[in-house]
Protein backbone atom coordinates (compact mmCIF):
# COMPACT_ATOMS: atom_id res chain seq x y z
CA UNK A 1 0.00 0.00 0.00
CA UNK A 2 1.21 3.51 -0.82
CA UNK A 3 0.78 6.64 1.26
CA UNK A 4 0.97 10.36 0.99
CA UNK A 5 3.59 11.38 3.55
CA UNK A 6 2.96 14.62 5.40
CA UNK A 7 6.28 15.94 6.73
CA UNK A 8 6.41 18.81 9.27
CA UNK A 9 9.74 20.51 8.58
CA UNK A 10 10.14 23.54 10.77
CA UNK A 11 9.22 21.84 14.00
CA UNK A 12 6.47 24.39 14.40
CA UNK A 13 3.35 22.84 15.96
CA UNK A 14 0.78 22.54 13.20
CA UNK A 15 -2.24 22.06 15.43
CA UNK A 16 -4.34 20.79 12.54
CA UNK A 17 -2.40 17.80 11.33
CA UNK A 18 -5.32 15.37 11.67
CA UNK A 19 -7.64 17.67 9.78
CA UNK A 20 -4.98 18.08 7.08
CA UNK A 21 -4.66 14.30 6.74
CA UNK A 22 -8.44 13.90 6.43
CA UNK A 23 -8.61 16.67 3.85
CA UNK A 24 -5.82 15.19 1.70
CA UNK A 25 -7.25 11.67 1.92
CA UNK A 26 -10.68 13.02 0.90
CA UNK A 27 -9.23 14.94 -2.06
CA UNK A 28 -7.08 12.19 -3.54
CA UNK A 29 -8.47 8.98 -2.06
CA UNK A 30 -5.01 7.97 -0.78
CA UNK A 31 -4.14 7.19 2.86
CA UNK A 32 -1.67 9.50 4.61
CA UNK A 33 1.13 9.13 7.14
CA UNK A 34 2.71 11.91 9.21
CA UNK A 35 6.50 11.51 9.62
CA UNK A 36 9.49 13.74 10.29
CA UNK A 37 12.22 13.68 7.61
CA UNK A 38 15.79 14.76 7.87
CA UNK A 39 15.80 18.19 6.24
CA UNK A 40 18.68 20.60 6.83
CA UNK A 41 16.95 23.98 6.66
CA UNK A 42 20.08 26.18 7.11
CA UNK A 43 21.42 24.74 3.83
CA UNK A 44 18.43 26.22 2.02
CA UNK A 45 18.67 29.67 3.62
CA UNK A 46 19.57 32.69 1.44
CA UNK A 47 21.15 35.32 3.73
CA UNK A 48 20.58 38.16 1.22
CA UNK A 49 16.91 37.48 0.85
CA UNK A 50 16.45 36.15 4.39
CA UNK A 51 14.22 33.47 2.89
CA UNK A 52 14.44 29.73 2.25
CA UNK A 53 14.83 28.31 -1.23
CA UNK A 54 11.84 26.03 -1.74
CA UNK A 55 13.48 24.13 -4.60
CA UNK A 56 16.38 23.12 -2.31
CA UNK A 57 13.97 22.02 0.44
CA UNK A 58 12.05 19.96 -2.13
CA UNK A 59 15.28 18.33 -3.29
CA UNK A 60 16.06 17.20 0.29
CA UNK A 61 12.50 16.00 0.87
CA UNK A 62 12.53 13.62 -2.05
CA UNK A 63 16.18 12.56 -1.76
CA UNK A 64 15.39 9.25 -0.02
CA UNK A 65 11.65 8.56 -0.14
CA UNK A 66 10.27 5.66 1.95
CA UNK A 67 9.43 2.58 -0.10
CA UNK A 68 5.68 3.06 0.48
CA UNK A 69 5.69 6.80 -0.33
CA UNK A 70 3.34 7.75 -3.17
CA UNK A 71 3.70 11.50 -2.56
CA UNK A 72 5.58 13.58 -0.01
CA UNK A 73 4.26 16.91 1.26
CA UNK A 74 6.54 19.08 3.43
CA UNK A 75 5.00 21.73 5.69
CA UNK A 76 7.20 24.55 6.94
CA UNK A 77 6.77 27.78 8.85
CA UNK A 78 9.63 29.41 6.92
CA UNK A 79 9.25 32.07 4.20
CA UNK A 80 9.89 30.37 0.84
CA UNK A 81 11.16 31.72 -2.48
CA UNK A 82 12.19 30.61 -5.93
CA UNK A 83 14.96 32.64 -7.58
CA UNK A 84 12.85 34.73 -9.97
CA UNK A 85 9.95 35.45 -7.58
CA UNK A 86 9.78 37.45 -4.36
CA UNK A 87 7.99 34.62 -2.57
CA UNK A 88 5.95 31.46 -3.07
CA UNK A 89 3.25 29.86 -0.90
CA UNK A 90 4.60 26.49 -1.94
CA UNK A 91 6.24 24.49 -4.68
CA UNK A 92 5.57 21.12 -6.28
CA UNK A 93 6.95 18.77 -8.89
CA UNK A 94 4.55 18.53 -11.82
CA UNK A 95 3.57 14.87 -12.10
CA UNK A 96 6.28 14.08 -9.55
CA UNK A 97 6.51 12.93 -5.96
CA UNK A 98 7.26 15.99 -3.84
CA UNK A 99 5.64 19.23 -2.74
CA UNK A 100 6.24 21.79 -0.03
CA UNK A 101 3.96 24.42 1.51
CA UNK A 102 4.82 27.36 3.74
CA UNK A 103 2.65 28.65 6.58
CA UNK A 104 4.61 31.91 6.75
CA UNK A 105 2.45 34.05 4.43
CA UNK A 106 -0.75 32.21 5.28
CA UNK A 107 -0.68 33.74 8.75
CA UNK A 108 -2.65 36.98 9.12
CA UNK A 109 0.06 38.34 11.45
CA UNK A 110 2.43 38.55 8.45
CA UNK A 111 0.12 41.23 7.00
CA UNK A 112 -0.17 43.15 10.27
CA UNK A 113 -3.59 41.71 11.03
CA UNK A 114 -4.76 39.99 14.25
CA UNK A 115 -3.89 36.31 14.40
CA UNK A 116 -6.60 33.97 13.10
CA UNK A 117 -5.49 30.33 13.52
CA UNK A 118 -8.70 28.96 11.98
CA UNK A 119 -8.23 30.97 8.79
CA UNK A 120 -4.54 30.04 8.63
CA UNK A 121 -5.35 26.33 8.90
CA UNK A 122 -8.02 26.66 6.22
CA UNK A 123 -5.47 28.27 3.91
CA UNK A 124 -2.92 25.56 4.70
CA UNK A 125 -5.38 22.79 3.80
CA UNK A 126 -6.14 24.49 0.46
CA UNK A 127 -2.48 25.07 -0.41
CA UNK A 128 -1.59 21.50 0.59
CA UNK A 129 -4.25 20.06 -1.73
CA UNK A 130 -3.25 22.59 -4.41
CA UNK A 131 0.44 21.64 -4.42
CA UNK A 132 -0.29 17.92 -4.13
CA UNK A 133 -2.65 18.34 -7.09
CA UNK A 134 0.34 19.42 -9.19
CA UNK A 135 2.18 16.23 -8.18
CA UNK A 136 -0.80 14.36 -9.66
CA UNK A 137 -0.18 16.21 -12.93
CA UNK A 138 -2.87 18.87 -12.54
CA UNK A 139 -2.25 22.34 -14.02
CA UNK A 140 -3.83 25.54 -12.72
CA UNK A 141 -7.57 25.38 -13.17
CA UNK A 142 -9.67 28.27 -14.47
CA UNK A 143 -12.74 27.18 -12.49
CA UNK A 144 -13.04 29.95 -9.88
CA UNK A 145 -13.92 27.74 -6.91
CA UNK A 146 -11.48 24.93 -7.67
CA UNK A 147 -8.59 24.47 -5.25
CA UNK A 148 -6.25 24.25 -8.27
CA UNK A 149 -7.14 27.84 -9.24
CA UNK A 150 -3.91 29.89 -9.20
CA UNK A 151 -3.34 32.12 -6.13
CA UNK A 152 -0.80 34.89 -6.18
CA UNK A 153 -2.17 36.77 -3.15
CA UNK A 154 -3.36 35.25 0.11
CA UNK A 155 -6.82 36.72 -0.53
CA UNK A 156 -6.99 34.55 -3.66
CA UNK A 157 -6.66 31.46 -1.47
CA UNK A 158 -9.64 32.59 0.63
CA UNK A 159 -11.79 32.83 -2.51
CA UNK A 160 -11.49 29.16 -3.44
CA UNK A 161 -12.75 25.96 -1.83
CA UNK A 162 -10.75 22.98 -0.52
CA UNK A 163 -12.21 20.81 -3.25
CA UNK A 164 -11.03 19.79 -6.70
CA UNK A 165 -13.57 20.64 -9.37
CA UNK A 166 -15.24 17.93 -11.44
CA UNK A 167 -12.82 18.40 -14.37
CA UNK A 168 -9.75 18.12 -12.17
CA UNK A 169 -11.12 15.01 -10.46
CA UNK A 170 -11.86 13.49 -13.85
CA UNK A 171 -8.34 14.31 -15.05
CA UNK A 172 -6.77 12.49 -12.12
CA UNK A 173 -9.04 9.49 -12.56
CA UNK A 174 -8.07 9.24 -16.23
CA UNK A 175 -4.36 9.21 -15.54
Amino acid at each position, binding site marked *: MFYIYIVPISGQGLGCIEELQRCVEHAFGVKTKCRAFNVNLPDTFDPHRKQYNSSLILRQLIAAPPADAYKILGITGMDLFI*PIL*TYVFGEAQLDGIGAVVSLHRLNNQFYGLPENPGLMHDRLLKEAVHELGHTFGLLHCFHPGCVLNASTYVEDIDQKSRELCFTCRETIRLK
Partner: protein
Amino acid sequence: MKPADIGILIVDDEASVRDALYKWFKFDGYRVDTAEEATSALKKLQEDSWEIVLLDIKMPGMDGLELQRQIKKIDKDIITIIITAFASVDTSIQALKEGAFDYIVKPIDPDDMSHLIRNAVEQRRLLTENMQLRQQIEEISYPEEIVGESPALKKVMDKVATVAQTDSTVMIRGESGTGKELIARAIHSNSNRRYFPIITINCGSYAEGLLESELFGHEKGAFTGALYRRRGKLEMADKGTIFLDEIGNIGEKMQMDLLRVIETRQFTRLGGDKLISVDFRIISATNKDLEKAVREGSFREDLYYRLNVFSITLPQLRERKSDIALIARFFVNKYSQSMNKTVTDLSPETLDMLMRYHWPGNIRELRNVIERAMVGARGPRIEVSDLAFPFHPSSKLSSEETLEAVEKNHIKDILDRTGGNVAQAAGILKISRLTLYNKIGKYRLKK
Protein backbone atom coordinates in the same frame (compact mmCIF):
# COMPACT_ATOMS: atom_id res chain seq x y z
CA MET B 1 -6.45 32.00 -27.07
CA LYS B 2 -5.94 29.14 -24.63
CA PRO B 3 -2.66 28.97 -22.64
CA ALA B 4 -1.74 25.82 -24.59
CA ASP B 5 -1.82 27.90 -27.79
CA ILE B 6 0.88 30.22 -26.43
CA GLY B 7 4.51 29.20 -26.64
CA ILE B 8 6.90 30.80 -24.14
CA LEU B 9 10.67 30.47 -24.57
CA ILE B 10 12.86 31.32 -21.57
CA VAL B 11 16.47 32.31 -22.28
CA ASP B 12 18.66 32.66 -19.19
CA ASP B 13 22.11 31.39 -18.30
CA GLU B 14 21.04 30.73 -14.67
CA ALA B 15 19.55 27.26 -14.41
CA SER B 16 17.59 28.14 -11.26
CA VAL B 17 15.85 31.04 -13.04
CA ARG B 18 15.13 28.89 -16.11
CA ASP B 19 13.71 26.07 -14.01
CA ALA B 20 11.62 28.35 -11.80
CA LEU B 21 10.08 30.16 -14.76
CA TYR B 22 9.59 26.93 -16.67
CA LYS B 23 7.61 25.47 -13.80
CA TRP B 24 5.66 28.69 -13.19
CA PHE B 25 4.42 28.88 -16.79
CA LYS B 26 3.95 25.13 -17.14
CA PHE B 27 1.53 25.16 -14.17
CA ASP B 28 -0.53 27.77 -16.02
CA GLY B 29 -0.78 25.45 -19.02
CA TYR B 30 1.51 27.31 -21.45
CA ARG B 31 3.80 25.51 -23.91
CA VAL B 32 7.25 26.22 -22.45
CA ASP B 33 10.87 25.59 -23.34
CA THR B 34 14.19 26.98 -22.16
CA ALA B 35 17.57 27.89 -23.62
CA GLU B 36 20.71 28.72 -21.66
CA GLU B 37 22.28 31.01 -24.26
CA ALA B 38 21.52 32.95 -27.43
CA THR B 39 22.67 30.42 -30.02
CA SER B 40 20.47 27.60 -28.78
CA ALA B 41 17.61 30.10 -28.33
CA LEU B 42 17.89 31.19 -31.98
CA LYS B 43 17.96 27.54 -33.05
CA LYS B 44 14.73 26.87 -31.12
CA LEU B 45 13.18 30.00 -32.62
CA GLN B 46 13.96 28.74 -36.12
CA GLU B 47 12.65 25.25 -35.40
CA ASP B 48 9.36 26.11 -33.72
CA SER B 49 6.98 29.00 -33.34
CA TRP B 50 7.11 31.01 -30.12
CA GLU B 51 4.77 33.79 -29.14
CA ILE B 52 6.66 35.16 -26.13
CA VAL B 53 10.39 35.12 -25.34
CA LEU B 54 11.68 36.01 -21.88
CA LEU B 55 15.39 36.77 -22.13
CA ASP B 56 18.09 37.68 -19.69
CA ILE B 57 19.84 40.90 -20.56
CA LYS B 58 23.25 39.68 -19.38
CA MET B 59 24.43 36.42 -20.82
CA PRO B 60 27.81 35.11 -21.86
CA GLY B 61 28.35 35.46 -25.62
CA MET B 62 25.51 37.29 -27.34
CA ASP B 63 23.75 39.53 -24.81
CA GLY B 64 20.00 39.99 -24.49
CA LEU B 65 19.89 43.20 -26.53
CA GLU B 66 21.58 41.62 -29.53
CA LEU B 67 19.49 38.48 -29.14
CA GLN B 68 16.35 40.61 -29.19
CA ARG B 69 17.51 42.23 -32.46
CA GLN B 70 18.07 38.78 -33.98
CA ILE B 71 14.65 37.58 -32.75
CA LYS B 72 12.91 40.58 -34.32
CA LYS B 73 14.65 39.72 -37.61
CA ILE B 74 13.16 36.22 -37.44
CA ASP B 75 9.67 37.42 -36.50
CA LYS B 76 9.00 41.04 -35.61
CA ASP B 77 5.72 40.09 -33.92
CA ILE B 78 7.32 37.88 -31.24
CA ILE B 79 6.80 39.51 -27.86
CA THR B 80 10.04 39.91 -25.98
CA ILE B 81 10.27 40.45 -22.22
CA ILE B 82 13.62 41.35 -20.69
CA ILE B 83 14.80 39.79 -17.41
CA THR B 84 17.22 42.03 -15.59
CA ALA B 85 18.84 42.73 -12.25
CA PHE B 86 18.34 46.21 -10.77
CA ALA B 87 21.79 47.30 -11.90
CA SER B 88 21.00 47.01 -15.60
CA VAL B 89 17.71 48.88 -15.81
CA ASP B 90 19.29 51.36 -18.25
CA THR B 91 19.97 48.54 -20.69
CA SER B 92 16.40 47.36 -20.24
CA ILE B 93 15.12 50.77 -21.21
CA GLN B 94 17.24 50.52 -24.36
CA ALA B 95 15.62 47.13 -25.00
CA LEU B 96 12.18 48.72 -24.61
CA LYS B 97 13.15 51.33 -27.19
CA GLU B 98 14.13 48.53 -29.52
CA GLY B 99 10.76 46.82 -29.25
CA ALA B 100 10.68 44.84 -25.99
CA PHE B 101 7.18 44.51 -24.55
CA ASP B 102 8.30 44.99 -20.93
CA TYR B 103 11.02 44.06 -18.48
CA ILE B 104 11.20 42.12 -15.23
CA VAL B 105 13.52 43.18 -12.41
CA LYS B 106 14.54 40.10 -10.43
CA PRO B 107 12.97 39.04 -8.12
CA ILE B 108 9.45 39.84 -9.27
CA ASP B 109 6.23 39.73 -7.29
CA PRO B 110 4.15 36.68 -8.39
CA ASP B 111 1.11 38.86 -9.03
CA ASP B 112 3.12 41.27 -11.21
CA MET B 113 4.43 38.30 -13.17
CA SER B 114 0.87 37.02 -13.73
CA HIS B 115 -0.29 40.46 -14.90
CA LEU B 116 2.72 40.86 -17.19
CA ILE B 117 2.13 37.56 -18.91
CA ARG B 118 -1.62 38.16 -19.18
CA ASN B 119 -0.91 41.52 -20.87
CA ALA B 120 1.69 39.98 -23.18
CA VAL B 121 -0.74 37.22 -24.17
CA GLU B 122 -3.45 39.83 -24.80
CA GLN B 123 -1.02 41.85 -26.94
CA ARG B 124 -0.20 38.74 -28.93
CA ARG B 125 -3.91 37.91 -29.32
CA LEU B 126 -4.60 41.41 -30.64
CA LEU B 127 -1.67 41.17 -33.06
CA THR B 128 -2.94 37.84 -34.37
CA GLU B 129 -6.49 39.15 -34.65
CA ASN B 130 -5.22 42.25 -36.43
CA MET B 131 -3.32 40.14 -38.94
CA GLN B 132 -6.36 37.96 -39.54
CA LEU B 133 -8.58 40.99 -40.13
CA ARG B 134 -6.01 42.45 -42.54
CA GLN B 135 -5.99 39.16 -44.38
CA GLN B 136 -9.77 39.28 -44.65
CA ILE B 137 -9.54 42.80 -46.06
CA GLU B 138 -6.95 41.62 -48.59
CA GLU B 139 -9.34 38.90 -49.69
CA ILE B 140 -12.13 41.35 -50.39
CA SER B 141 -9.83 43.88 -52.00
CA TYR B 142 -11.76 43.86 -55.27
CA PRO B 143 -15.42 44.48 -54.55
CA GLU B 144 -17.15 41.38 -55.87
CA GLU B 145 -19.82 43.43 -57.58
CA ILE B 146 -17.40 44.50 -60.29
CA VAL B 147 -18.46 41.81 -62.75
CA GLY B 148 -17.51 41.41 -66.37
CA GLU B 149 -14.94 40.19 -68.84
CA SER B 150 -15.35 42.73 -71.62
CA PRO B 151 -12.25 44.49 -72.96
CA ALA B 152 -13.77 47.84 -71.85
CA LEU B 153 -13.99 46.69 -68.22
CA LYS B 154 -10.56 45.04 -68.31
CA LYS B 155 -9.09 48.33 -69.44
CA VAL B 156 -10.71 50.06 -66.47
CA MET B 157 -9.45 47.44 -64.02
CA ASP B 158 -5.92 47.74 -65.43
CA LYS B 159 -6.10 51.46 -64.72
CA VAL B 160 -7.40 50.74 -61.21
CA ALA B 161 -4.47 48.40 -60.53
CA THR B 162 -1.99 50.98 -61.82
CA VAL B 163 -3.28 53.99 -59.94
CA ALA B 164 -4.01 52.09 -56.71
CA GLN B 165 -0.29 51.68 -56.08
CA THR B 166 0.24 55.44 -56.21
CA ASP B 167 -1.18 58.21 -54.05
CA SER B 168 -2.43 60.21 -57.03
CA THR B 169 -5.72 62.05 -57.06
CA VAL B 170 -8.20 60.23 -59.26
CA MET B 171 -11.29 61.41 -61.09
CA ILE B 172 -13.82 58.79 -62.14
CA ARG B 173 -16.10 59.76 -65.02
CA GLY B 174 -19.13 57.88 -66.17
CA GLU B 175 -22.86 57.92 -66.58
CA SER B 176 -25.08 57.44 -63.60
CA GLY B 177 -25.23 53.78 -62.56
CA THR B 178 -21.94 52.69 -64.13
CA GLY B 179 -20.38 51.84 -60.74
CA LYS B 180 -18.19 54.85 -59.97
CA GLU B 181 -18.28 54.25 -56.20
CA LEU B 182 -17.36 50.58 -56.65
CA ILE B 183 -14.33 51.61 -58.67
CA ALA B 184 -13.36 54.18 -56.01
CA ARG B 185 -13.57 51.44 -53.37
CA ALA B 186 -11.51 49.09 -55.55
CA ILE B 187 -8.76 51.74 -55.82
CA HIS B 188 -8.80 52.32 -52.06
CA SER B 189 -8.85 48.60 -51.24
CA ASN B 190 -5.77 47.99 -53.34
CA SER B 191 -3.81 50.99 -52.11
CA ASN B 192 -1.49 51.29 -49.13
CA ARG B 193 -4.27 53.20 -47.38
CA ARG B 194 -6.55 50.16 -47.32
CA TYR B 195 -6.28 49.62 -43.56
CA PHE B 196 -7.70 53.09 -43.00
CA PRO B 197 -11.20 54.22 -43.90
CA ILE B 198 -12.64 55.33 -47.21
CA ILE B 199 -15.13 58.07 -46.45
CA THR B 200 -17.77 58.83 -49.04
CA ILE B 201 -19.57 62.13 -49.33
CA ASN B 202 -22.21 62.80 -51.94
CA CYS B 203 -21.56 66.45 -52.71
CA GLY B 204 -24.79 66.72 -54.65
CA SER B 205 -27.02 65.86 -51.74
CA TYR B 206 -26.08 68.72 -49.40
CA ALA B 207 -26.86 72.41 -49.43
CA GLU B 208 -23.71 74.58 -49.52
CA GLY B 209 -23.51 75.30 -45.77
CA LEU B 210 -24.30 71.74 -44.80
CA LEU B 211 -21.66 70.32 -47.14
CA GLU B 212 -19.08 72.57 -45.51
CA SER B 213 -20.08 71.29 -42.08
CA GLU B 214 -20.05 67.68 -43.29
CA LEU B 215 -16.59 68.00 -44.80
CA PHE B 216 -14.83 70.18 -42.23
CA GLY B 217 -16.87 69.44 -39.09
CA HIS B 218 -17.81 72.12 -36.61
CA GLU B 219 -17.15 73.33 -33.08
CA LYS B 220 -19.84 73.49 -30.44
CA GLY B 221 -21.93 76.62 -31.01
CA ALA B 222 -20.56 77.24 -34.52
CA PHE B 223 -24.13 77.73 -35.70
CA THR B 224 -27.65 77.23 -34.38
CA GLY B 225 -28.04 73.55 -33.67
CA ALA B 226 -24.32 72.86 -33.30
CA LEU B 227 -24.80 71.47 -29.80
CA TYR B 228 -21.48 69.66 -29.67
CA ARG B 229 -18.19 69.41 -31.54
CA ARG B 230 -18.38 67.21 -34.60
CA ARG B 231 -15.52 65.79 -36.65
CA GLY B 232 -15.87 66.32 -40.38
CA LYS B 233 -15.50 63.68 -43.05
CA LEU B 234 -12.05 64.96 -43.99
CA GLU B 235 -10.86 64.29 -40.44
CA MET B 236 -12.43 60.84 -40.49
CA ALA B 237 -10.58 60.08 -43.73
CA ASP B 238 -7.18 60.77 -42.13
CA LYS B 239 -4.61 58.29 -43.54
CA GLY B 240 -7.37 56.90 -45.77
CA THR B 241 -9.32 58.06 -48.80
CA ILE B 242 -12.06 60.64 -49.23
CA PHE B 243 -14.45 59.89 -52.07
CA LEU B 244 -16.20 63.03 -53.32
CA ASP B 245 -19.14 61.83 -55.37
CA GLU B 246 -20.93 64.22 -57.73
CA ILE B 247 -18.09 66.71 -57.45
CA GLY B 248 -19.56 68.69 -60.36
CA ASN B 249 -22.42 69.79 -58.12
CA ILE B 250 -20.46 71.85 -55.55
CA GLY B 251 -20.87 75.59 -55.32
CA GLU B 252 -18.31 78.33 -55.87
CA LYS B 253 -17.33 78.86 -52.21
CA MET B 254 -16.98 75.15 -51.59
CA GLN B 255 -14.76 74.84 -54.67
CA MET B 256 -12.48 77.50 -53.22
CA ASP B 257 -12.39 75.87 -49.75
CA LEU B 258 -11.74 72.46 -51.24
CA LEU B 259 -8.91 73.80 -53.39
CA ARG B 260 -7.26 75.28 -50.30
CA VAL B 261 -7.54 71.97 -48.41
CA ILE B 262 -6.12 70.01 -51.33
CA GLU B 263 -3.14 72.37 -51.54
CA THR B 264 -2.36 72.65 -47.81
CA ARG B 265 -3.92 69.45 -46.40
CA GLN B 266 -5.04 71.65 -43.54
CA PHE B 267 -8.39 73.12 -42.53
CA THR B 268 -10.28 74.43 -39.55
CA ARG B 269 -13.63 73.20 -38.28
CA LEU B 270 -16.53 75.64 -38.71
CA GLY B 271 -16.43 78.04 -35.77
CA GLY B 272 -12.94 76.88 -34.79
CA ASP B 273 -9.52 78.43 -35.18
CA LYS B 274 -7.30 75.37 -34.68
CA LEU B 275 -5.63 74.20 -37.86
CA ILE B 276 -6.14 70.49 -38.37
CA SER B 277 -3.67 68.61 -40.55
CA VAL B 278 -4.89 65.56 -42.39
CA ASP B 279 -3.39 63.02 -44.72
CA PHE B 280 -5.85 61.67 -47.26
CA ARG B 281 -6.14 60.66 -50.86
CA ILE B 282 -8.89 62.19 -52.96
CA ILE B 283 -10.99 60.26 -55.42
CA SER B 284 -13.78 62.25 -57.03
CA ALA B 285 -16.52 61.23 -59.42
CA THR B 286 -18.89 62.99 -61.71
CA ASN B 287 -21.31 62.31 -64.54
CA LYS B 288 -21.11 65.93 -65.69
CA ASP B 289 -19.09 67.47 -68.47
CA LEU B 290 -16.62 69.28 -66.22
CA GLU B 291 -14.60 70.65 -69.15
CA LYS B 292 -17.75 72.40 -70.34
CA ALA B 293 -18.39 73.65 -66.79
CA VAL B 294 -14.83 75.04 -66.71
CA ARG B 295 -15.35 76.76 -70.08
CA GLU B 296 -18.61 78.23 -68.84
CA GLY B 297 -16.95 79.38 -65.63
CA SER B 298 -19.15 77.39 -63.25
CA PHE B 299 -16.28 75.12 -62.15
CA ARG B 300 -12.85 76.46 -61.14
CA GLU B 301 -10.17 75.53 -63.60
CA ASP B 302 -7.45 75.23 -60.91
CA LEU B 303 -9.63 72.82 -58.90
CA TYR B 304 -10.41 70.85 -62.06
CA TYR B 305 -6.69 70.30 -62.71
CA ARG B 306 -6.07 69.42 -59.04
CA LEU B 307 -8.79 66.76 -59.13
CA ASN B 308 -8.23 65.43 -62.62
CA VAL B 309 -4.68 64.12 -62.15
CA PHE B 310 -5.57 60.60 -63.22
CA SER B 311 -8.83 60.02 -64.99
CA ILE B 312 -10.80 56.80 -65.37
CA THR B 313 -13.85 56.79 -67.62
CA LEU B 314 -16.31 53.99 -67.04
CA PRO B 315 -18.00 52.45 -70.06
CA GLN B 316 -21.77 52.55 -70.36
CA LEU B 317 -23.44 49.18 -70.04
CA ARG B 318 -24.55 49.32 -73.67
CA GLU B 319 -20.88 49.57 -74.63
CA ARG B 320 -20.11 46.30 -72.85
CA LYS B 321 -23.09 44.20 -73.87
CA SER B 322 -21.06 41.02 -73.57
CA ASP B 323 -21.07 41.58 -69.78
CA ILE B 324 -24.86 41.88 -69.48
CA ALA B 325 -25.45 38.12 -69.09
CA LEU B 326 -22.67 37.83 -66.47
CA ILE B 327 -23.95 40.81 -64.50
CA ALA B 328 -27.58 39.67 -64.73
CA ARG B 329 -26.64 36.18 -63.48
CA PHE B 330 -24.59 37.74 -60.68
CA PHE B 331 -27.64 39.68 -59.47
CA VAL B 332 -29.90 36.60 -59.86
CA ASN B 333 -27.53 34.69 -57.62
CA LYS B 334 -27.27 37.56 -55.14
CA TYR B 335 -31.02 38.11 -54.84
CA SER B 336 -31.88 34.41 -54.80
CA GLN B 337 -29.79 34.20 -51.62
CA SER B 338 -31.08 37.37 -49.99
CA MET B 339 -34.72 36.66 -50.96
CA ASN B 340 -34.38 32.94 -50.22
CA LYS B 341 -35.64 32.07 -53.73
CA THR B 342 -34.82 29.05 -55.84
CA VAL B 343 -34.39 31.08 -59.03
CA THR B 344 -31.01 30.19 -60.48
CA ASP B 345 -30.91 31.56 -64.03
CA LEU B 346 -32.58 33.58 -66.78
CA SER B 347 -34.33 32.07 -69.77
CA PRO B 348 -32.63 32.54 -73.17
CA GLU B 349 -35.56 34.77 -74.25
CA THR B 350 -35.11 36.97 -71.18
CA LEU B 351 -31.37 37.25 -71.80
CA ASP B 352 -32.03 38.12 -75.41
CA MET B 353 -34.43 40.84 -74.32
CA LEU B 354 -31.91 42.22 -71.81
CA MET B 355 -29.22 42.26 -74.49
CA ARG B 356 -31.44 44.25 -76.84
CA TYR B 357 -32.22 46.98 -74.31
CA HIS B 358 -30.05 50.09 -74.35
CA TRP B 359 -29.83 50.52 -70.54
CA PRO B 360 -29.87 54.28 -70.03
CA GLY B 361 -29.61 53.68 -66.26
CA ASN B 362 -26.66 51.29 -66.75
CA ILE B 363 -25.86 48.61 -64.16
CA ARG B 364 -28.07 50.21 -61.51
CA GLU B 365 -31.05 49.85 -63.86
CA LEU B 366 -30.13 46.26 -64.70
CA ARG B 367 -29.89 45.47 -60.99
CA ASN B 368 -33.31 46.98 -60.34
CA VAL B 369 -34.83 45.08 -63.26
CA ILE B 370 -33.46 41.78 -61.95
CA GLU B 371 -34.50 42.57 -58.39
CA ARG B 372 -38.07 43.35 -59.47
CA ALA B 373 -38.19 40.22 -61.64
CA MET B 374 -36.91 38.09 -58.76
CA VAL B 375 -39.73 39.27 -56.52
CA GLY B 376 -42.34 37.93 -58.95
CA ALA B 377 -40.46 34.97 -60.38
CA ARG B 378 -42.02 31.58 -59.60
CA GLY B 379 -40.02 29.12 -61.65
CA PRO B 380 -36.33 28.28 -61.53
CA ARG B 381 -35.59 30.86 -64.25
CA ILE B 382 -36.58 34.44 -64.85
CA GLU B 383 -38.96 34.46 -67.81
CA VAL B 384 -39.84 37.41 -70.04
CA SER B 385 -43.21 37.62 -68.28
CA ASP B 386 -41.42 38.22 -64.95
CA LEU B 387 -39.96 41.49 -66.19
CA ALA B 388 -41.97 44.41 -64.82
CA PHE B 389 -43.98 46.61 -67.14
CA PRO B 390 -42.01 49.88 -67.18
CA PHE B 391 -39.09 47.85 -68.37
CA HIS B 392 -39.37 46.72 -71.95
CA PRO B 393 -36.69 45.89 -74.41
CA SER B 394 -36.04 48.72 -76.73
CA SER B 395 -35.43 48.04 -80.35
CA LYS B 396 -31.89 47.34 -81.31
CA LEU B 397 -31.05 50.91 -80.66
CA SER B 398 -27.65 52.03 -81.70
CA SER B 399 -26.13 55.25 -82.88
CA GLU B 400 -25.92 53.91 -86.42
CA GLU B 401 -29.66 53.13 -86.75
CA THR B 402 -31.94 55.34 -88.84
CA LEU B 403 -35.09 56.86 -87.41
CA GLU B 404 -37.18 54.59 -89.63
CA ALA B 405 -35.40 51.48 -88.36
CA VAL B 406 -35.92 52.58 -84.77
CA GLU B 407 -39.59 53.25 -85.41
CA LYS B 408 -40.08 49.92 -87.14
CA ASN B 409 -38.46 47.94 -84.34
CA HIS B 410 -40.37 49.81 -81.65
CA ILE B 411 -43.72 49.22 -83.31
CA LYS B 412 -42.82 45.55 -83.76
CA ASP B 413 -41.95 45.19 -80.09
CA ILE B 414 -45.18 46.80 -78.95
CA LEU B 415 -47.21 44.59 -81.29
CA ASP B 416 -45.38 41.55 -79.93
CA ARG B 417 -46.20 42.58 -76.39
CA THR B 418 -49.88 43.20 -77.12
CA GLY B 419 -50.16 39.95 -79.04
CA GLY B 420 -50.95 41.82 -82.26
CA ASN B 421 -53.79 43.85 -80.72
CA VAL B 422 -53.64 47.00 -82.88
CA ALA B 423 -56.00 49.07 -80.73
CA GLN B 424 -53.97 48.34 -77.56
CA ALA B 425 -50.67 48.93 -79.36
CA ALA B 426 -51.94 52.24 -80.77
CA GLY B 427 -52.95 53.27 -77.25
CA ILE B 428 -49.44 52.55 -75.92
CA LEU B 429 -47.81 54.31 -78.87
CA LYS B 430 -50.24 57.22 -78.48
CA ILE B 431 -51.07 57.27 -82.19
CA SER B 432 -54.36 56.56 -83.97
CA ARG B 433 -55.24 53.07 -85.15
CA LEU B 434 -55.25 54.34 -88.73
CA THR B 435 -51.71 55.69 -88.41
CA LEU B 436 -50.61 52.39 -86.89
CA TYR B 437 -52.22 50.44 -89.74
CA ASN B 438 -50.37 52.68 -92.20
CA LYS B 439 -47.05 52.06 -90.46
CA ILE B 440 -47.65 48.31 -90.26
CA GLY B 441 -48.22 48.40 -94.00
CA LYS B 442 -45.22 50.61 -94.64
CA TYR B 443 -42.84 48.41 -92.63
CA ARG B 444 -44.52 45.19 -93.69
CA LEU B 445 -45.08 44.11 -90.12
CA LYS B 446 -47.27 41.21 -89.05
CA LYS B 447 -50.19 42.12 -86.80
